[in-house]
C-alpha cells in the first residue's frame, strides 16, 4: 500500500500529507485509501443521509488536497488533522443547508461498539492517550456534554434540552472541555498561544 509515515506526531519521515502537498500523485491515492474510511465514518455521523455523507466525503478530500501543505506533524497526527478538516466541512455543510442548530445527529449504526466503559475508543496512540486522559478527568456531566457535542454532533441547544441544563452551562462545559484537551495536546494556555501561519 505504499510508504506511510512513521507513527507519532514527530515522525521524521515525510508523511503522506506532506507528500501530497509536494505534488506526489501516488501519495494522493495512498491518502484516500488510508483515510477514506475515517473521513466517511465522520461524514456518516454528521450527515442526514448516506448520499449526503458520500457527497461530503468527496468535498472533504478536495479540502484535504487544498490544505495538505498546512499539516504540521508537531501539532497533530495526520488522522486528527484530517478529522479536523472533515469536521469543519461537515459543520459548514450543515450551516449552509439548514442555518439552524442541529437537534439530533443521525447515527446510521454502521459502527460496532468497541470501546471502554467511558465510551472512549480503544485506539492507542500517544496523542489519543493524552486526549483520553484529559476527557477522563472531566466530571461526568461535562464529559457527556463534550461527547454529545463533538462526537454525536448535537447542537448546544439540543444538549441543553436533553440534559435539562441552561444553554450557557452547556457552552461553558464545551469550552472548558476543549480547553483541557488543548492543554493535553501541548497547546499553550489560553491567551498566549501561538498564531498559526
Amino acid at each position, binding site marked *: 500500500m505504499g510508504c506511510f509515515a512513521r507513527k507519532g506526531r514527530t515522525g521524521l519521515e515525510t508523511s503522506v500529507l506532506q507528500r501530497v502537498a509536494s505534488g506526489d500523485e501516488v501519495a494522493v491515492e495512498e491518502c484516500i485509501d488510508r483515510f477514506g474510511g475515517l473521513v466517511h465514518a465522520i461524514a456518516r455521523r454528521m450527515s442526514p443521509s448516506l448520499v449526503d455523507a458520500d457527497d461530503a466525503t468527496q468535498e472533504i478530500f478536495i479540502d484535504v488536497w487544498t490544505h495538505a501543505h498546512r499539516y504540521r506533524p508537531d501539532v*497533530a497526527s495526520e488522522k*486528527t488533522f484530517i478529522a479536523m478538516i472533515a469536521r469543519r466541512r461537515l459543520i459548514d455543510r450543515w450551516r449552509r443547508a439548514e442555518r439552524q442548530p442541529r437537534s439530533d445527529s443521525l447515527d446510521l449504526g454502521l459502527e460496532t461498539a468497541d470501546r471502554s466503559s467511558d465510551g472512549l*475508543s480503544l485506539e492507542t496512540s500517544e496523542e489519543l492517550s493524552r486526549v483520553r486522559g484529559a476527557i477522563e478527568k472531566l466530571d461526568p456531566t461535562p464529559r457527556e456534554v463534550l461527547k454529545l457535542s463533538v462526537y454525536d454532533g448535537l447542537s448546544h441547544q439540543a444538549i441543553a434540552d436533553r440534559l435539562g441544563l441552561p444553554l450557557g452551562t452547556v457552552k461553558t462545559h464545551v469550552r472548558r472541555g476543549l480547553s483541557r484537551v488543548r492543554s493535553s*495536546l501541548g*497547546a499553550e494556555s489560553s491567551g498566549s*498561544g501561538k498564531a*498559526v501561519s
Partner: protein
Amino acid sequence: MNPRDLERLEQLLADRATEGLGDVELLELRGLLMRSDAVDADGWLIAAAAVDRAFASDATPSTLAPSLRSRIGRQSREHFRAVRARRPQAHPSESAPTPDDSSDLATSRAPRLTLPRDSASASTVPSRASLRFDFIGWAVAAAAILVAFIGWLPETEPEPHVALALLKELDPDTTESSWGSSDFESFRNVSGKVVWSERHQRGFMVIRGGPVNDPRVLQYQLWIVDAKRDENPVDGGVFDVTSSGEQIIPFHSRLPVEPSAFALTEEKPGGVVVSKGPLVLVAAVE
C-alpha cells in the same frame, strides 16, 4: 485583551469547533481576533477533532465503497489537473482566447469600450477569471492576525452583505460609486453601486434590477478603468446576474489599480481578454 473579551473569544472558538457560527458571530469572532494577541485559533478545531477520534469506534470501516472510492479518485485527479492548469503560463498569450467576431452581440448599440488593440498590452492583461470571492486571499491582504484565523480552513464564507460590511470595517476609506444611466433599455432601471477598497484591491458590485443573463449565451464582464494606466482596463472577472433583485458580487483586481471608473460589458461566455462587447454600465469614481 481583557478577561471578559478573552472568554468570549474562546467561547466563540469553541462554538465554531463544535456547531459552527452564524454570520454575525463570525463577524464578532473576527473582530475579537483582530484585537487580540496571537491566538491559536486552530487549536480549538484540532482539539475537537482529537475528542472526536477519542470517542470514535475502533471498528470503523477501513475502506470506502468501491464506487465512492472511484469517484473520489477521479475527482481528485481532476482537481490536481485544474490546479496545474491555473499555474502561471510561460507565455500568457498562450492561454488568451482567440477574438471572436461572430457573436451576435457585436451589433452596434451603445458606445463600445474603445481601447487600443495592442497585442503587447493584451498580453499584460490578466487572464479572465470567474468572480469567486477568495476569502483566503482576502486574509493574506489583511492583518497577520486575520491570517492566523481565517487562514486556511474551509470556513463558511460569510454572506456577501456580511463580507461587504467586513470590507468596510477593515478599510474605512472604501469608496462607493453609483452606477450611471445606461443607453441600454434592459439596464435603464438598474441601480446600485461599486464599493472599492484600494488598500485591499477588492470590492463589491451592488446591482439592483439587473437583467438576468443566460450564461450559455452571454456573460457580464467587469473592467477596472485606471486613468493612470496606458494599457487596457484591468479585467475584474465575469459574472452572471441571476436575479432581478439585489445582488452583491465580490471582485478583486489582479493588478494594482487606482480605479477611475468601473465598467460592465456584455461578452461571450467565459469573457474575453480585451473587451469586444457593448458597454452597458459605468460607475465613475469621484
